């Protein structure tokens, strides 16, 4: 159910505006028919969330097409023109470098970068924000960036690190496939962080785009011999605080 300024709104009021956009139409339909109540102070807040979710999905698809390598933290790499590579395997924005340029460089020179799936999620979020916010605002919000899963996540994005069981799952959510019987020497495959792309499809760095069966099939290859448990999609998601971001954008 969608509620705007305390009044229930039907999806039909919005669907027409997104005739050619599959992602927004799917999000609106799911919100309308879902078990959760989606409450907004204004229609602009809803529009912002739709825009952000679409940007997240597009960033994920774009990352999939890039040459960003899948690397464990021990082997991670980055373009040291923009980023300082830490001993932990993360990347810190260098001083006097604009965050927008550094984040954009991950797309432009993707072959110079390699990291694992959780950091890839954070990269996707930053790239999506860069698409939605003005460059000036983006640089003002993020004078410092430390890319290393959720360990050093900026407060503005902290919800991205926290998985919670939800009543509905929407495109743009971060989901997680767990792999409980993973080989002990392959901890990087203990699971896969993914972005929900809608229509039952997911993107996970290191695996690519696929439906849940395909992601599970890929993870199952890294199980111990004689494994009894298969990988599975965890019933929870991490969702950015879109209302907070909408307020910032305005």
């Amino acid at each position, binding site marked *: 159910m969608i509620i705007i300024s305390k009044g229930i709104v039907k999806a039909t009021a919005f669907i027409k505006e997104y005739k050619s956009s599959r992602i927004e139409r799917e999000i609106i339909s799911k919100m309308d028919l879902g078990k959760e109540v989606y409450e907004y102070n204004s229609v602009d807040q809803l529009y912002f969330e739709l825009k952000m979710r679409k940007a997240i999905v597009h960033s994920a698809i774009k990352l999939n097409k890039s040459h960003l390598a899948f690397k464990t933290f021990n082997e991670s790499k980055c373009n040291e023109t923009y980023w300082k590579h830490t001993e932990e395997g993360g990347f810190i924005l260098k001083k006097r470098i604009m965050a927008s340029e550094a984040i954009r460089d991950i797309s432009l020179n993707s072959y110079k970068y390699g990291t694992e799936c*959780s950091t890839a999620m954070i990269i996707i979020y930053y790239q999506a924000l860069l698409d939605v916010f003005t460059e000036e605002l983006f640089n003002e919000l993020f004078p410092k960036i430390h890319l290393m899963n*959720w360990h050093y*996540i900026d407060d503005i994005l902290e919800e991205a690190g926290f998985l919670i069981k939800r009543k509905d799952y929407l495109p743009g959510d971060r989901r997680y496939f767990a792999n409980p019987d993973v080989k002990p020497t392959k*901890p*990087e495959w*203990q699971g896969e962080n993914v972005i929900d792309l809608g229509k039952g499809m997911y993107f996970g760095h290191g695996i690519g785009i696929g439906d849940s069966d395909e992601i599970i099939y890929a993870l199952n290859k890294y199980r*111990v011999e004689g494994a009894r448990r298969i990988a599975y999609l965890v019933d929870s998601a991490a969702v950015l605080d879109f209302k907070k971001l909408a307020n910032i954008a305005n």
Partner: protein
Amino acid sequence: MSHFLEVVTIIYYDSSIKSEWGDYMYKGYEDYSEIAAILSARGYKDKKILPIIVDLIFLKNRRGLFNHDLIWIFFEAIEPYSLMLVANYLGSKDPEDVKLANKLLEFVPCINMSRGNDYQIPYMAFVYWLHENYPFLYFTGESFQRTSKPMPYRVILDAKYLCKKVSLYTGEVLIPLTEQDKLLANNFNNLDEDNKLLLSKFSARIHKENLFIWNSWINRPIAKQISIAKGRIGGDS
């Protein structure tokens, strides 16, 4: 002792290698010992390696090195009492150790970094929590790869309320429930979270004190159970 434990023990405790390790962080030894520790703990279920793994976790943290895989393997050993090894670091003189210990035990309700300089308070609170909840713990498998606030162990509250031990691996009660147990559990599960915490805590407590009183209490109407529990331990769950 497994071969891998021997290897890690030699590397860890040999003073010349350790000195080199401490001073230069020689990558070869570090990677090999980490792999050996992983195989020992998870591959061969050798829990004697856990103290070394915990020390390695905190050592790497102090050095600003990646330790999430070691943290993962530590929790994957599925040994709740090993959490005491982490709790010991709550009293470390190094603030980075204390910070990490708090982070790793953050899923325990009583751990609170704002307890000031007296580490005994959170430490003893943790000891009591572990002792009270050990029979009802379920290993969730959550890790820092999955979420920023992993809860590697969860207390199965309805089992705690019924005082029925659960499997660490599945969260299911070890002894099948009677029809009466199922009815009690059903009523319990319809409560809000605060009352579930209250009743489960109270139930576990009086079950230890006096089985006869516990049996009398748990078979009263649920509203009466709540008022008795509130009278005895209040809302401090």
